[in-house]
């Protein structure tokens, strides 16, 4: 696995993905607690998870288009929240 710096986003853009990242993690862990017994809340959670997942993916798609980052067929990008740097991890 190699790791390469391929770009950087603005602090505002970083804040946006960090917030979505936190929410996605929170929802995933809440899903382990919540059961379908609480139908109303469960439905809300499922809906939230879907929406957050979509926003999350949209962010990466939008940023990838905007900055035209280098990519790789089996690689993935990751962001360093401290520095706003984007890295490409590739095999």
């Amino acid at each position: 696995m190699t790791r390469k710096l391929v770009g950087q986003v603005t602090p505002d853009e970083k804040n946006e993905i960090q917030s979505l990242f936190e929410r996605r993690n929170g929802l995933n862990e809440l899903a382990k607690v919540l059961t379908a017994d609480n139908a109303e809340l469960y439905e809300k959670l499922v809906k939230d998870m879907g929406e957050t997942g979509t926003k999350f993916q949209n962010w990466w798609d939008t940023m990838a288009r905007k900055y035209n980052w280098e990519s790789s067929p089996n690689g993935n990008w990751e962001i360093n929240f401290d520095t706003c740097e984007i890295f490409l991890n590739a095999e």
Partner: protein
Amino acid sequence: MGNIKDEAAQWLDGTAANITFIVTKDCQLACKYCYLVGKNDKERMSFLTAKKAIDYILTSSLFFGRQKSVILDFIGGEPLLEVELIDKICDYFKLQTYIRGHKWFDAYRINLTTNGLNYHTKKVRKFIEKNITHLSITITIDGNEIKHDLNRVYKNSGKGSYKNVLKNIPLWLKDFKDIGTKVTISSADIPYIKESVLHLFSLGIHHLYTNCVFEDVWKEGDDKLFEEQLSELADIIIDNEYYKDFTCSFFSENIGKPLDPILENQNWCGAGKMLAVDAAGMFYPCTRFAGYSLREKKPIIIGNVRDGIDKNKLRPFLTLDRTTQSPQKCLDCEVASGCAWCQGENYDAAETNTIYQRATAICLMHKARVRANNYYWNKLYRKLELEGQREEFEKNKRKVKPVDC
């Protein structure tokens, strides 16, 4: 493009609210330097009390209105003795913040520091797995076997706990990448500091947060011995280039400078900006003000889960500054920066019932640390300059956070 992954950031640079649940006052160990003088196996927090505390905190704008994020800290005694309770408390927090649409649902962390003895148990493994993206656990291992066992002994047998803790270190390092541990120094273990730090590096623990106890335990000559140990350690770290992969907070560039009385007048300690709650549902400005932490003084209770926080009791903590509580020798000190204090120990050691009298038992130890620290950085930077490596080092060096308690 395959999976997209994010790196965890340092958690909001210490601006988060901090809520400490004293879930139990029981522990398997009776560490010789432990400040918890009132440990017992009777006071265990009930889930109901924890729920009331969370309900109050989530609805109170008085104390936590401004902080965007929160850290839930679980402390003991040994917190993992109550891992099932902790799990329930965390679940309740998640559920309530979600139901209420509270901002902290998107911004919370769960922290606990453990003696590591129960780390491998099924209950603990289940808890870790369930909460891994929000969880940080620190296992305290104090150094090599001699140093660890000098202080960290079982309460019943008096035997050292090193071997049983060591068994769980690989599992812990697998769970928490890049985690560090806290090393506490008291008088008796000064001769083992160097070997202990190197031992912990060899175990794969890359970051050590080290501090001397604040209590008045130091003997004549301890400072000289301390300086010798740190200087020898500095030589080994530099000669073997351990500084490239490891950090030890003994060596920090920002310590040992005079402090401006106006511009650098902040309190060191965060007591009053955090909240601790115990089994009886009492609120404290930090765990160090709970009865079981105090040798000489009565606890400072700032409220309870039923009536909330008495804001008047918080005022002294929130207006406390460095110069008002420091004696003249500290104000005149030319190596003042980085010299820490614990507000709870200040209170416990003060001549009157005040938090405004700074304890200075640590004075000579700080000065010894500053001398060794100066030696470390002078030697390291000269080496890096000669090798043309200084710029690269500066660019990549990791920030070492100060350890206050």
